[in-house]
């Protein structure tokens, strides 16, 4: 017997739960603006997220996946990437979407059941929110393949959850990223739960970062609630990818403080005590504490930032709530570049039904007649 290969997985953390530095910080993290800027996005994300949940609860939006507790990850992604990189998200990186140019109204629109939400006025080629778990990993390697082919200086970043690492597409993607040495970063937000399935029931691997070993790429574990560690790790992985040195899997240890989505009730399957423990690790609290101690952040700044955020959110919610409805015929209009003529009849039928429905609505506006009563 001889040893033919050996591997190690490292863990990165810069701040403890109280915001105290555990090691020398990277240079950028000693600059006030950098951290305040990041904190601003994290706070905006958190406040917006809470409003989105409220909109769902009051019947003004559909199912929504909160990112409560995971804001450091979204902010780090958004701030670490270049504008012309491509972000290939899951559905829990709201902060990153905002930083990369989606307006809050776009995000609300998507969760409000309107495709136009996936067509925000952004200048990049980011992918829309991916619902089929892990399927987007392959899109990221495809995008990275195009960058490599064109010798462009760009990278793709793919975000997934812990549950996604069990899915074949994830593995096929990291394997290709390895063998083609692609400029791509896989960011696994290990928030300890895949709906009701705990991390331990998802895989026997000690870490999720070590899944990288199967693909011959680097894997690293990081405290995902520590913005500085998160951003630093991402910066390095992105720089490595950009300079042609291949892919990385970053396992960000975090915790989903919310229900899985607004359709879920997490108290069915996990204890309040567990949630309490993780509340202590809150990424916003931690960064705020750090900024208070190290950078003179204070209650005044905190309050004024909060108000600023809230006003912005209010405006966006109004824009969402008052947006004009899309005509139903749009379901035909983006199916193909131009609609094959055999479908014109179906489109016409839909158009007629729509018009009839509008007409019917006006006619019956004050009676109690339901659509079905026409029959």
């Amino acid at each position, binding site marked *: 017997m001889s040893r033919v290969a050996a591997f190690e997985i490292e863990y990165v953390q810069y701040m403890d739960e109280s915001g105290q530095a555990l090691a020398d910080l990277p240079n950028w993290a000693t600059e006030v603006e950098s951290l305040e800027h990041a904190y601003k996005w994290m706070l905006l994300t958190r406040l917006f997220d809470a409003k989105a949940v409220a909109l769902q609860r009051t019947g003004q939006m559909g199912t929504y996946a909160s990112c409560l507790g995971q804001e450091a990850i979204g902010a780090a992604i958004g701030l670490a990437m270049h504008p012309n990189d491509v972000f290939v998200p899951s559905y829990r990186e709201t902060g990153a979407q905002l930083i990369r140019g989606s307006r809050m109204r776009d995000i609300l629109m998507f*969760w409000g*059941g309107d495709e136009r939400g996936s067509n925000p006025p952004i200048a990049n080629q980011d992918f829309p929110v991916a619902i089929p778990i892990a399927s987007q990993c392959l899109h990221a390697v495809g995008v990275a393949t195009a960058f490599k082919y064109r010798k462009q200086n760009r990278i793709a970043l793919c975000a997934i959850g812990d549950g*996604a690492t069990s899915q074949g597409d994830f593995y096929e993607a990291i394997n290709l990223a390895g063998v083609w040495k692609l400029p791509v970063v896989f960011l696994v937000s290990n928030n300890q739960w*895949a709906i009701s*399935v705990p991390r331990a029931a998802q895989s026997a691997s000690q870490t999720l970062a070590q899944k990288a070993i199967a693909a011959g790429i680097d894997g690293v574990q990081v405290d995902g609630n520590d913005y500085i560690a998160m951003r630093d790790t991402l910066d390095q992985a992105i720089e490595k990818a950009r300079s042609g040195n291949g892919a990385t899997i970053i396992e960000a240890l975090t915790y989903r403080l919310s229900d899985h989505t607004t359709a879920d009730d997490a108290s069915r399957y996990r204890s309040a005590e567990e949630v309490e423990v993780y509340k202590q690790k809150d990424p916003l609290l931690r960064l705020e504490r750090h900024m208070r101690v190290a950078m003179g952040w204070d209650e005044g700044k905190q309050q004024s930032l909060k108000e600023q955020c809230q006003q912005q959110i209010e405006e966006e919610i109004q824009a969402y709530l008052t947006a004009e409805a899309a005509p*139903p015929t749009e379901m035909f209009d983006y199916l193909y570049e131009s609609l094959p003529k055999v479908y014109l009849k179906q489109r016409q039928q*839909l158009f007629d039904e729509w018009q009839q429905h509008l007409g019917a609505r006006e006619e019956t506006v004050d009676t109690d007649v339901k659509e079905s009563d026409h*029959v």
Partner: protein
Amino acid sequence: MSKITLVEAVNQALEYEMAHNNNVIILGEDVGKNGGVFRATLDLQSKFGEERVLDTPLAESMIVGTAVGMATQGLRPVAEIQFMGFIYPAFDQIINHASRLRNRTRGRLHCPLVIRAPYGGGIHAPEHHSESTEALFAHVPGLRVVIPSSPLRAYGLLLAAIRDNDPVLFLEPKRIYRMVKQEVPNKGEALPLDECFVLRSGTDITLVTWGAMVHETMKVAESLALQGVEAEVIDVATIKPLDIDTILQSVEKTGRCVIVQEAAKTCSVGAEIAAQIAEQGLLYLCAPIQRVSGFDTVMPLFKLEDYYMPSENRIYSAVKQTMEFA
């Protein structure tokens, strides 16, 4: 006896069969403590233990492929796919293995497994949660595809599916999971797996449908009755194999036929029914067949889903046209 919903009837059937047969095992995402995202497997883990109600890692091909292996050992796995929109990673395991194993081994191994999946639109769910792609599976030789439309039929058909010695895809129309309540005697009585159900007899027109659309179709039939038109309503229930005889007999009687389905039109189950009537029942027809259907578009996000799915209006217009054809 209290009345229960369709999803409760699913749960009741699962519980009944698990209590009576140790070989029945449930597996899927969130089926354990959480009881499934729609609560179809509610309390089954606490009743039957973690060995019989297995929360799996997140991988659909794995769920079905593992169930295939289990089934060859004489277990009767009932696999849950959380939403039909996530069944596609398992397509290979379904078409290339589950449906073929008996045939490829000339009966040496077989696959008594059930794949349950909530399907269809109308609950304002997120992207990929509302499609109706039953036709993809109805095309697959060796598979059975069953779709209940009431608590009673959900109970009886699911029992039959679990007891059947071949793979069954059991699609549960989630829009009607909690729409209607019925008394469902918990006596373990199965319903036949290859027969249509005639829900309403009539002489003037045959309305063929399945799943959630049964309800709109029945309402239209009742409205028609007020106008003196007696519609026969057939719930196909098992779309594969398709009991065309019951449908043909009805069309022979009525001479008119409208098929109502939520799915996209092209190559749908409705196409197969229309084709078989055109082949075997052409001379019965006094009017062209009509398919009332979802459109050949991607199922829209929920703001527009009501425009996609057949409404009572859309059904009624088609029926009217068909009745007026002379």
